[in-house]
């Protein structure tokens, strides 16, 4: 029974990672590609780690897997946000069917980014 669940988790995780990779080719612009890369890959890693924890069943392995999953789930959104931010500021074009862009008026795409001072004097 344990082997079956481990196998299912492994296959699902690998499948998700494959879809995340495919998404990089299928999606029309960078921001949509990030959707697939951020979501599918982090859950994929989570499933693979879960499979490892379940399959080996060792306390030290479980602890490390849990820690690994936590790190991935905390770091992925940060990395994704920074990539998206950098791309937008660099003026990477949006897909032409993007039907509304509230960020455009806040900061025109491609215009040089000038940091404004925040409340505590930092950017």
């Amino acid at each position, binding site marked *: 029974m344990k082997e079956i669940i481990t196998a299912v988790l492994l296959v699902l995780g690998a499948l998700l990672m494959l*879809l995340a990779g495919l998404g990089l080719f299928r999606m029309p612009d960078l921001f949509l590609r990030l959707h697939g890369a951020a979501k599918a890959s982090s859950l994929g890693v989570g499933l693979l780690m879960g499979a490892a924890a379940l399959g080996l069943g060792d*306390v030290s392995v479980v602890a490390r897997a849990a820690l690994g999953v936590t790190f991935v789930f905390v770091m992925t959104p940060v990395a994704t946000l920074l990539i998206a931010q950098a791309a937008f500021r660099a003026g990477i074009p949006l897909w032409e069917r993007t039907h509304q862009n509230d960020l455009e008026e806040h900061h025109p795409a491609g215009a040089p980014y000038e940091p404004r001072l925040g409340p505590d004097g930092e950017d």
Partner: protein
Amino acid sequence: MTAFLWNLMLALLWAAMLGNVTPENLLTGFVIGFVLLALIDTQHVPSRYGTQAWNVVRLVAGVGWDVLVANVRVAYEIATPKLLTRPAIYRYDMEARTDAEITLLTLIVTFAPGTLALEVSEDRKAIYVHVMFATTREAFCQELRERVEIPLLRALR
């Protein structure tokens, strides 16, 4: 948060007093400590630890569900030949104010179905969200507020 640390310490203490730090002893210690902390009267006001913990559990369960839904939707979009996506970038005026609240909100938004945090405005009053399956800004903001921000703030404050 402090109550949670106390809870962990009580669990450790319980296990240490039994003379055997095993996962089972830690768990029973945690449960007993939880009940005590939930009942205890701190500074003559009823403790909120019990309801607070319940709010955190609800938030984690909700976010976990969102992660699964998000993956199914994105996977479907990638695996089927027709692109149904209708992207947009919406401004969302948030109620979250502290660094921790804003960070957690953007983190959850990135994992929620079809949304991706793009930018936090300089005055820290709004975030800009890239949406994969857009409707209108009003509908999107209302859904985000009800599904994510209110549960999050309830769990944190």
